[in-house]
Structure formats: structure tokens, C-alpha cells
């Protein structure tokens, strides 16, 4: 009883001491909640029909005052930092520390009092803001919408309070671990950002060093380790909440597991902060770090990733591995010295702890060697086949299979590599072994590659993602791919037209040609078309898809607003006949008068034009190879033949990207240009162009691809 009385008395006294933070948060919440509630909806008045006004205002209010409000989220993180520092600041000032620790109050009690007050200050000031905002909304701006606004605002209150607990506890750990306000702020930054930062850095490094690395691995790692960092959990939760809207809440409610995770995180972080507070020596007030033993570990933990970040930075600027090594050495030295200066508050102490400095440099160089030399054979290594249950492969060349829809026709980033599964490993493994053996050889610049993404779903429930490059000009590769791609079991997983939901929701079919598009006159014909087309498309072989151009693109509209583009190849005879019977396809053709190649030179930020042809024979030949879409007033080649080329000047003046798009049109300006001589057999001419004007070389190179007459290997 005495303890309880003391606890409440101390709480009251502590609140008096922290009056300024209470007033500050009251002010912030006043402007963030009732003031915004009064202002935000008025922006829509006069612009919207009254029918839509209320709904629009409700959405606006819920997004600015609810869980996904950027302002409230920033306040939540700011309040966590502010309250942690204002509450436990006494640990940083020797006089204050002596004052509190000399009193007959245990450190446990002291922690409980200050910690609880921090939570109460945030919870109460935020609650008052919510109540004030609801009053403003119900009395003034949105009368009659009390249920929706109250549900949304209180749900936001609940979620942000949970997230505040996690952030606040982590910030308290940082304050207790340090002995100065400045180092506490740095510590909070490190604790908040370390896990996401290191994961991001690993991702960058793997992308830099490993050609088969796939970014999705990191997303999964981040998802799995989000419990280590409130920032990582917050990123994830924010995306979840913002994903779609429940009608009453106006946000997607967090799963029970995510709420439990937040609570557990808060509990664990609080327990750590509590334990550290209890063992924290009073004499550490005024020092950079409260626990001397943590100093070398912290130095090492920051120095190694920091050196790699520095390596990447210098490598990006200077180019090449030598600059990477230079960056590592600079990074370790600068971070190591900076931390020692911070520890001792003395620039002369920069080289203290040189053993750790050397150890950090050695570790960083060792890791660099391992990554650069791929000591563990990451790029060549396949998971053990007997441990893999299924694979997902996204071949990427078939844009219609890469539409990112799941079986319910909802957008799903995860469907292609997580949900679509292919179980015939005997068909997949020869391809994967073939491509993984070729990885590691730098093959860029020799041929045209398509990148593929592969997900290995293992029997233990984990998934490993890889990216490979396939050279389709290699017949062996094409044969391996055909084994999989021509298997209906594969296509049924990736072609949305095979999904049951698609058939039931399809309501319109249009065909796009060189000019405009035509739709099926009778909506009832759509299902008949789909049946014919699907059957034929499933029979179109890989070789046709890779090397032939479709004659038409069909646009398939489903009832939920989904629009899919699918190719119609010449061998889809029944489909073409069906289309010809029900629409005027000839109206979609256009007689082109000129063909030219344009490149956007990003170094000079201007478009340059090359190779204008007005020879009908060439135009006809190119037209045959293309299926066009009408974009921004001109025809482009659907992205299929879009190519990006890297270019390095001989004098090493720099490098930039050149992106080329074959354009076909009747541009008056292009009419006056004379087509250049084009000798497809003359390599010397092409190579000489490279040395004369690399830009022109690439223009020729691009056209050579379309004409399909030159081999791709210009590696001379």
C-alpha cells in the first residue's frame, strides 16, 4: 500500500516536472486534430456535387485524422523521442542523477513512474485531441457521420498508441544506454534505423556483387525481422493499413498477429529498458555511453556496415572496385575515429581503441573479399532439389502473364512468385542448372537477355528468390524453357484468362491495331471469344512467342475494371476468324510513310533521331515484326522491343543510359531526312560507326535487332 501511494505521489511530482512536454503535446494535437478536422473538409466545398461531398469529406477526414495520417504518425514518433528524453534526461546530468538516486526510491519504482508518465502524457493528450476533433466534426463539419468518424479516429488512436509504445520503449533504451542528450538522440537514431538500414545495405551489396540476387529476399527478411525494430514494424503496418479500406474503418484493420507482435515488442523493449535502468551506474551521467563495455561493440557494429555504405558511395562516384576498397578503408577510419572522439569528447582520442579499428577493417575487408570473389558460390549454387517443394518462375517476356493479378483478379504483387506454383521439378531443374552454371560469367554486351525471377519454395516453408538471365538465342536454353513454358500446368498458373474468376467477370473485348481499337459488338460474344482464344493461346509454342510478333493485341475488360492485354498470333486462326467475323479489323491498319529511331540521350537531356526510312519495303518489313500500341500520339512497340543500352565514352568522360524506342509515324520533320545507307553485312561499317559516334552505333544496333539480320555479337 505504501509503495502504491508512493508510486502515485511520485507520478504526480514527475508530471509537474514534465509540464512543458504536456503543454507542447496538447498544442500539437490541437493543431493536428480539431483544427485539421475543422479545416480539411472545407477544401472540398464548392468543388464537388453534394451527393459525393459527404463521402469525399469522410474519406479525407479519415485519412488525415486516422491511423494513416502522416502528420499523426510523425507526431507519434516525435512524441516517443521527446517523452523518452524528457522523462529519463535525469540520467544524463550528474547532479540530477545523484538527487534521484539518493532518495529512498528504488530504480525499479523510478523507472515505472517515469515510463508510465510518458505513456500517460501521450495517451491523454492524444485522446483529448481525438475528442475535440470528434466534437468539431459532429457539431460542425460532418454532422451525422459520428459512427464512421469515431470508429476511424479511435481505431487510429488504438494503433498509434500501440506503435508509440514500441517506439517509446526503444527510445528509452537508447536514453538509458547513453549518458548525454546528444548521444541519446544519436542512439535513438541508431536503434530505430539499424535493422532496416543494415537490411537495406545488405540488399544493395548483394545487388552490387551477386548477379542472381533478387530483391524479394530482403523484403522477406525485413518482414521476418520486423519485430527487432519499431521502424520496420511501422513501415509494414503503415502499408497494411493503407492497402485498402474497410467501409467503416476506412483503413485495413491490422491482423491480430500484428497487434500481438506490437504488444510483445513493446513488452520486450520495456523489459530491456527496465533491466538496463536498474543496472545503470549513476556515475555514467555525463559520459557518452553509460556502459563502457558496450563501446567497442557499438563501434564494431557501426563501423562494418558503415564502411560498406561508404564503399558503395565511393564506388558509385568513382566507379570500379578500387574505389569500393578505398571507401571501406575511409569508412572504417572515419566512423571508428568519430565514435572514439564522441566517447572521449576529445579529438585527440580519435585513435583510441585502434585494435577494434583494425578488427573492424579486417572484418570489412574479409566480407568484401567474400562478396567480390563469391567465396560461397552464391551465384552458382542451387538449393538442394530434395528440399524444394515447388518453384515459381516469372519469365518476363510474356507481358500478359506478368499482369500481377491473383486468382481473384485483385492486384497482387506476390502472386507470380509466391502463389503461382509449379511442381514438376524434373522439368525445371535442367533449366536452372543450365543458367546457374552460366551465372558469374559476365555475359553482358554479348547477347540479348531476358531476366527471369525464380522462387524456390522449400519444404520447410521458407522461400529463396533468385534472378537469372536467359539467352534465348541459345537453342539449348530455349529448349529448356520450352519444357516448362509449353506445359499447360505452367500457363494455367500465369495466364489470367485461365482463372475461373476471369471468365465470370469478363464483359468486353476490344482489339487494338496500328490505329485505334475495335470492340465486339455484342457483349454476349465475349465468353465465346475467350473460350476460342484461350484454347488457341495455350497451344502457341514458346518459339512463336519469343520470335514472332503478334498480329493483334486484344484488350480484355473485366467487370471489376481490370484491363488485360493479350497477343493474337498468326497461328491463332480460329481467333482471328472469329474477330474478323465480328469486327472490321482492316480499319485498324495504317499505311506508314516513314520509320525512324529515336534515342533519348540522358546526359544531354534531349532526343536524337537516327535512321529514317521511307522505303516502303523496309517499312513493311519492320511493320511485320511489330505489334503496336498507341501512346501519347504515336505508335510504340508495346515495350517488347524496347531496349536499354549502357554506353561508355572511350575518353572515359562518363557514362549514361541510352534508351531507344522504335517509332513509326508520319512525322513531317522526319520526311525530309534521308535514310542512311544500311549494309547489314558490313560489320566494319558498324564498328567504325561505334568509334565515330557511339550514339549512331547504338541506333544502328537497335535497328539491326528489329531487322533480325545481324548477329548480336559486336564484342570486338
Amino acid at each position, binding site marked *: 500500500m*505504501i509503495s502504491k501511494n*508512493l508510486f502515485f*505521489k*511520485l507520478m*504526480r*511530482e514527475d508530471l*509537474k*516536472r514534465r509540464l512543458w512536454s504536456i503543454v507542447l503535446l496538447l498544442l500539437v494535437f490541437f493543431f493536428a486534430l480539431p483544427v485539421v478536422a475543422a479545416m480539411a473538409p472545407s477544401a472540398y466545398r464548392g468543388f464537388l456535387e453534394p451527393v459525393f461531398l459527404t463521402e469525399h469529406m469522410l474519406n479525407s477526414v479519415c485519412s488525415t485524422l486516422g491511423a494513416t495520417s502522416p502528420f499523426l504518425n510523425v507526431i507519434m514518433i516525435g512524441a516517443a523521442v521527446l517523452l523518452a528524453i524528457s522523462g529519463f534526461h535525469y540520467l544524463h546530468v550528474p*547532479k*540530477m*542523477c*545523484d*538527487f534521484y*538516486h*539518493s*532518495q*529512498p*526510491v*528504488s*530504480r525499479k*519504482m523510478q523507472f515505472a513512474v517515469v515510463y508510465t508518465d510518458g505513456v500517460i502524457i501521450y495517451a491523454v493528450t492524444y485522446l483529448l485531441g481525438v475528442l475535440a476533433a470528434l466534437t468539431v466534426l459532429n457539431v460542425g463539419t460532418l454532422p451525422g457521420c459520428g459512427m464512421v468518424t469515431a470508429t476511424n479516429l479511435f481505431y487510429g488512436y488504438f494503433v498509434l498508441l500501440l506503435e508509440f509504445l514500441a517506439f517509446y520503449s526503444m527510445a528509452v533504451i537508447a536514453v538509458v544506454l547513453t549518458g548525454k542528450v546528444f548521444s541519446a538522440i544519436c542512439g535513438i537514431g541508431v536503434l530505430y534505423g539499424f535493422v532496416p538500414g543494415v537490411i537495406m545495405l545488405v540488399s544493395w551489396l548483394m545487388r552490387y556483387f551477386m548477379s542472381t540476387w533478387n530483391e524479394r529476399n530482403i523484403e522477406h527478411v525485413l518482414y521476418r525481422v520486423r519485430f527487432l525494430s519499431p521502424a520496420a514494424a511501422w513501415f509494414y503496418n503503415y502499408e497494411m493499413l493503407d492497402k485498402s479500406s474497410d467501409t467503416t474503418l476506412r483503413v485495413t484493420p491490422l491482423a491480430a498477429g500484428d497487434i500481438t507482435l506490437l504488444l510483445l515488442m513493446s513488452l520486450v523493449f520495456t523489459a530491456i529498458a527496465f533491466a538496463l535502468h*536498474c543496472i545503470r*551506474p*549513476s*556515475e555514467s551521467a555525463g559520459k557518452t555511453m553509460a556502459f*563502457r563495455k558496450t563501446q567497442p561493440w557499438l563501434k564494431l557494429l557501426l563501423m562494418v556496415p558503415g564502411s560498406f555504405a561508404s564503399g558503395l558511395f565511393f564506388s558509385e562516384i568513382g566507379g570500379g572496385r578500387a574505389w569500393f576498397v578505398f571507401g571501406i578503408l575511409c569508412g572504417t577510419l572515419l566512423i571508428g575515429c568519430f565514435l572514439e572522439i564522441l566517447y572521449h569528447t576529445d579529438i585527440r582520442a580519435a585513435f583510441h581503441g585502434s585494435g577494434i579499428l583494425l578488427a573492424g577493417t579486417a572484418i570489412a575487408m574479409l566480407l568484401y573479399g567474400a562478396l567480390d570473389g563469391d567465396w560461397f558460390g552464391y551465384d552458382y549454387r542451387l538449393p538442394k532439389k530434395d528440399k524444394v517443394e515447388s518453384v515459381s518462375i516469372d519469365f518476363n517476356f510474356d507481358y500478359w502473364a506478368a499482369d500481377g493479378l491473383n486468382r481473384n483478379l485483385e492486384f497482387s504483387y506476390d502472386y507470380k512468385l509466391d502463389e503461382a506454383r509449379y511442381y514438376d521439378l524434373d522439368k525445371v531443374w535442367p533449366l536452372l542448372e543450365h543458367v546457374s552454371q552460366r551465372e558469374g560469367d559476365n555475359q553482358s554486351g554479348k547477347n540479348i537477355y531476358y531476366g527471369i525471377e525464380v522462387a524456390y519454395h522449400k519444404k520447410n516453408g521458407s522461400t529463396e528468390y533468385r534472378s537469372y538471365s536467359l539467352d534465348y538465342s541459345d537453342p539449348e536454353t530455349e529448349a529448356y524453357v520450352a519444357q516448362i513454358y509449353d506445359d499447360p500446368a505452367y500457363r494455367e498458373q500465369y495466364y489470367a484468362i485461365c482463372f475461373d474468376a476471369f471468365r465470370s467477370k469478363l464483359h468486353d473485348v476490344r482489339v487494338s491495331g496500328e490505329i485505334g481499337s475495335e470492340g465486339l459488338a455484342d457483349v454476349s460474344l465475349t465468353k465465346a471469344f475467350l473460350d476460342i482464344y484461350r484454347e488457341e493461346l495455350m497451344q502457341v509454342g514458346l518459339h512463336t512467342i519469343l520470335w514472332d510478333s503478334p498480329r493483334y493485341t486484344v484488350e480484355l475488360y473485366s467487370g471489376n475494371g481490370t484491363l488485360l492485354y493479350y497477343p493474337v498470333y498468326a497461328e491463332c486462326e480460329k481467333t482471328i476468324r472469329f474477330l474478323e467475323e465480328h469486327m472490321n479489323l482492316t480499319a485498324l491498319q495504317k499505311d506508314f510513310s516513314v520509320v525512324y529511331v529515336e534515342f533519348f540521350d540522358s546526359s544531354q537531356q534531349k532526343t536524337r533521331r537516327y535512321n529514317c526510312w521511307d522505303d516502303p519495303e523496309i517499312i513493311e518489313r519492320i511493320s511485320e515484326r511489330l505489334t503496336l500500341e498507341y501512346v501519347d500520339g504515336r505508335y510504340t512497340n508495346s515495350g517488347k522491343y524496347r531496349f536499354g543500352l549502357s554506353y561508355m565514352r572511350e575518353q572515359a568522360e562518363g557514362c549514361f543510359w541510352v534508351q531507344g524506342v522504335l517509332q513509326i509515324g508520319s512525322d513531317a520533320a522526319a520526311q525530309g531526312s534521308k535514310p542512311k545507307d544500311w549494309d547489314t553485312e558490313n560489320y566494319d561499317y558498324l564498328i567504325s560507326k561505334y568509334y565515330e559516334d557511339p550514339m549512331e552505333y547504338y541506333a544502328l544496333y537497335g535497328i539491326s535487332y528489329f531487322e533480325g539480320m545481324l548477329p548480336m555479337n559486336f564484342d570486338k
Partner: protein
Amino acid sequence: MIEARKVTKSFGDVRAVDGIDAVIEEGGVYGLIGTNGAGKSTFLRMVAGILKPDEGEIRIDGAPVYENPPVKANLFYIPDEPYFLPNAKAVDMEKYYKAVYPQFDRERFQSMLEQFGLDRKRKVAGFSKGMKKQLAVIAGVCSGTQYLLCDETFDGLDPVMRQAIKKVFAGEMAERDLTPIIASHNLRELEDICDHVGLLHKGGILLSRDLYDMKADVHKLQCVLREDGPAMEEIVRGLKTVKQEQRGRLYTLTLKGNREEIEKTIAAAEPIFYEVVPLTLEEIFISETEVVGYDIQKLIF
């Protein structure tokens, strides 16, 4: 009773307190004397339960003090520079101490503030250094604790206030056995108040003695001998001489032993004049530390 057993405390590479053994009995004033950096404040902070000893243990009334609120409820620590809550007035501190020390006497606090001429409703931040020290002492006295740990508390106080506070201490000691433990580098400051003195040097305790015992054991003799009488060396041969000085015919000796025996020995030599005068604390320390082989002049003065 406060007991320190082999207490050691280091700050980084610096050993501030090195194996202190001390016993502080209740009911008296314990003076902790030493130079700057001798370890007085560190020792006091360990007694107050602020710092945890690296080795050894400090027990108060038989129980360890560190992280032991019931034990700490019986002591009040007044640092060299007292801390008060931000923007607090004396009345706010009164409320705070009342929350922390249940036996805190608010009426006494208010009357003492009046007695010392401190405005209860004035912000403490506006007080002078001496006024802040007075306020801290008043708070300490009114907290009702048995032990009052004062670190350089008399430093910065004017002589009148110093005497007033000593008087308060004396009254509290008589009334409820208050035990002030006063750390200071100034021997003269503690002379008329301490019952027991501990001398700290370089983190260790050189000596810890009862002042009454020390005074009873060490005596200062001033004496003028007859010209035809025996030499001083012969007269004091049977006594333990700590120090001997001569100015003209006046001898000044510091002697250890029983006062009556000393007087009897000197009287037998029939000197022209002799007198046994009381030693100052400073002189006692000079003699005591010299006995253990230290030159106190170098240690303190």
C-alpha cells in the same frame, strides 16, 4: 551504525576509493576529511546508495544500502552543489520531499525557512549559493532521517549561518540522535562540531579516531625551564614526544600520554613556567599522521 568493509570504487582507470574500512556510530558527528580528490564525495555517494561499490559493501544498521529504499529512507544526502527541481520554489520542494520522505516535517520546514529568512514562494533558482545550501540543510533536517550526509556543506556559508546550522545539528542530535556525516577539506571548519574524524587520502582511510580520545591522548606543553635545571631532553625522556620546538627559552612540545603524568613529570623539573594547552584539530592531525608516517602539511594544507 554505518559500516564500510573493504569498499573500493574506480571510475575508468582512476581508483577513487581504495579498500576503505570504516565504522560510523550513530549519535555523533563524523567528519570526513581529505584533500580534493581524496575520495570523500565518492565515499559519501556510496554511503548514500547512489554509487555501487566495485568491491566491498556498505551497510547501514546491518542492511546494505544500495538499492534498498527502507534503509535509504533513514538517510538524506546533501551534495556539494544541491539540486532542486526545475522552476521549483521552496514550497514545491517541501511537497516533493514530503512525497519521498513520509516523516518529512512540513511545519518544521516552514518555521526553519522563516528562521533562516528564506522565502517559501520564491524560485530556488533565484537563491544564492549559500541560500541553496541552507535550504538543502533545512530539507535534510526536516526529512527526519537519522543520517545526514553533507558534502562540503559548510563551504560557501557565512560564519553566522555556519554557526546557526551547527546549532541546529546539535539540537537535532540531542533531540533524536541525528548523525551528521560531514565531508570537508577544511579541518578548521569541523573542529568544533565533530566527535569522530576520518582522514581520507588517495582513496584510502589514513585514520579514523574519536576526537575526544585523540584529545585525551595528545597534549601540547609550553614550558620555560630554569637555566640551572635539567635539559628538556632529560625531563621528557620518559614521555612519548611527538614534536619539539624551541623559540628562545620557550619550549613547545607535543606529547602523547596521560595528562596528569605529563604534568607531574614537568612539575618535578621545577620549570619557571609550564602550561598544558588544548590542541587544535589541525595539530592533533599533524601529530597523528606523523605517527603513521605522513606529513599532514603536505596532505591537507
